[in-house]
């Protein structure tokens, strides 16, 4: 009989130890839990999310983008509302409230031994970075890894400083593609879907992971299927309004499923069975 988890809405404090200016309007916050016990309890897997609060302002949902092994955790934030605007005024040493971890992450145990295609669109990259770090730490347990990261303009590219380290690994191909051509960018252009099409994979032994805007996920899953990857092996991280994080407040429901509790990572097979439009 699984034990019941007990929840309240009280956050635990974490200190901002580093702020990285990733791109205009996007910052990464590196956080250290004030009490070591809290980090132990915040034992997360890639794809899970937390609810981060500034008392009096509000709470916002972020998937961790750091490796679960690190003592400190990282989240990447785009300022689109009151809570994220307030986060952008934070300095090193400020405190932020943390609740979580919540949700079902990417099924990294299930895809052991497989090749993995990771496709990220814009601000959908963070949870997939956590996935990548996890896979790279256990490199032998996984096959080939392709990462296709797409952004609208060259200014939107994040985690530039992580690229060199990732590329050092064997059989890891990282493709950053920019939608809007420009002089400063010598790299790939086009949509992520264009690059998925170019892949040569063994569909029977490949898993596809993706996170990004709803429209992108729809097209990416179509491309994955065109490559022959089965819906059970395609895993997508969805976004919805979250407030409680534990499947009670109702905001994140799609049909009878709760994105915070049954997701945010769903297989395409599960999404097809959803009783409401997903995208």
């Amino acid at each position, binding site marked *: 009989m699984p034990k019941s988890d007990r929840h309240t809405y009280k956050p635990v404090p974490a200190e901002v130890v580093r702020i990285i200016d990733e791109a205009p309007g996007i910052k990464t916050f590196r956080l250290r839990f004030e009490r070591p016990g809290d980090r132990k309890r915040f034992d997360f897997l890639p794809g899970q999310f937390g609810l981060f609060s500034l008392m*009096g*302002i*509000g709470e916002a949902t972020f998937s961790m983008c750091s490796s679960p092994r690190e003592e400190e955790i990282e989240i990447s934030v785009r300022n689109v509302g*009151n809570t994220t*605007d*307030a986060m952008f*005024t934070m300095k090193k040493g400020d405190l932020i409230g943390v609740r979580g971890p919540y949700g079902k992450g990417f099924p990294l145990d299930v895809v052991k031994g497989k090749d993995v295609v990771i496709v990220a669109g814009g601000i959908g990259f963070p949870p997939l970075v956590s996935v990548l770090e996890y896979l790279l730490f256990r490199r032998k347990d996984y096959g080939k890894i392709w990462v296709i990261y797409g952004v609208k303009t060259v200014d939107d590219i994040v985690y530039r400083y992580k690229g060199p380290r990732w590329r050092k690994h064997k059989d890891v191909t990282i493709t950053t593609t920019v939608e809007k051509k420009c002089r400063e960018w010598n790299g790939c252009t086009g949509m992520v879907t264009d690059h998925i099409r170019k892949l040569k994979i063994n569909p029977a032994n490949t898993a596809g992971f993706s996170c990004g805007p709803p429209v992108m996920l729809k097209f990416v899953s179509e491309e994955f299927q065109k490559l022959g990857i089965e819906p059970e092996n395609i895993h997508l991280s969805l976004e919805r309004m979250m407030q409680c994080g534990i499947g009670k407040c109702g905001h994140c429901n799609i049909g009878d499923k709760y994105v915070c509790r049954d997701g945010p990572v769903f297989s395409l097979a599960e999404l097809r069975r959803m009783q409401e439009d997903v995208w």
Partner: protein
Amino acid sequence: MVKPKVAFFGMTSCKGCYFQLLLANEKLPAIFGSIDIVDFWMLNEKPKDDDMYDIAFIDGAVSNHENAELVRNVRERSKYVIAFGTCACHGGIPAVRNPDERKHSAYHKLVYGKDIKVKSYPHADPVSRHIHVDYEMTGCPINEREAVEVIRDLLLGKKPVAPDYPVCVDCKKAGVSCLFKEGTLCMGPVTRAGCNAPCPASRTACDGCRGPLPDANWNEMEKLMKEHGIEKKTMNMMLGKYTGGKMAK
């Protein structure tokens, strides 16, 4: 911490919304003590030369050239502009004359005599028709609690969001038994919430003073009104006294 500079300006209105602010000040001096009121309409009608404002409140409709110049002036020197009151947000009572624009000078002559020259525009406008408004705090008059909460939120660096749902939600939360269900012609379902439904709470039908709710189901409302013998024209008139005769559609 430096207190934000706040200014208040008034245009064509009854100034009832100002009384709501004064009431709020009486009850909650803390919020008003946290701001530096540099200009208040009763003391200075126009901005002082070099003044820059963090928050500017503008009440009243734009109904003449003076008003239009004033709002443009205020916009240039303000970081955040709040249009408060239905007159500022929708035109309000000054805009009642709007549908009869063409009779403007004839009415003017009738009311003021032929010796006083017409100085006002043929139609009274909401402030947003002349400048970009950051927040519309509607209501005839405004709800003092909303004023306090908006200032509180701005002091915390939060941008306030106006309710995008009907008065019915406020009404139920206030514990009121639905007037509409009792046969009273309440405009709650098509009116923007945020007032805590004081009129229905006093057993008076909502008459839409906070202006139309953009996503309201106008077709159904017209149908239900018709079942009670109220034609669309009449409903237009009822709500139109706050919006210059126009409904949301």
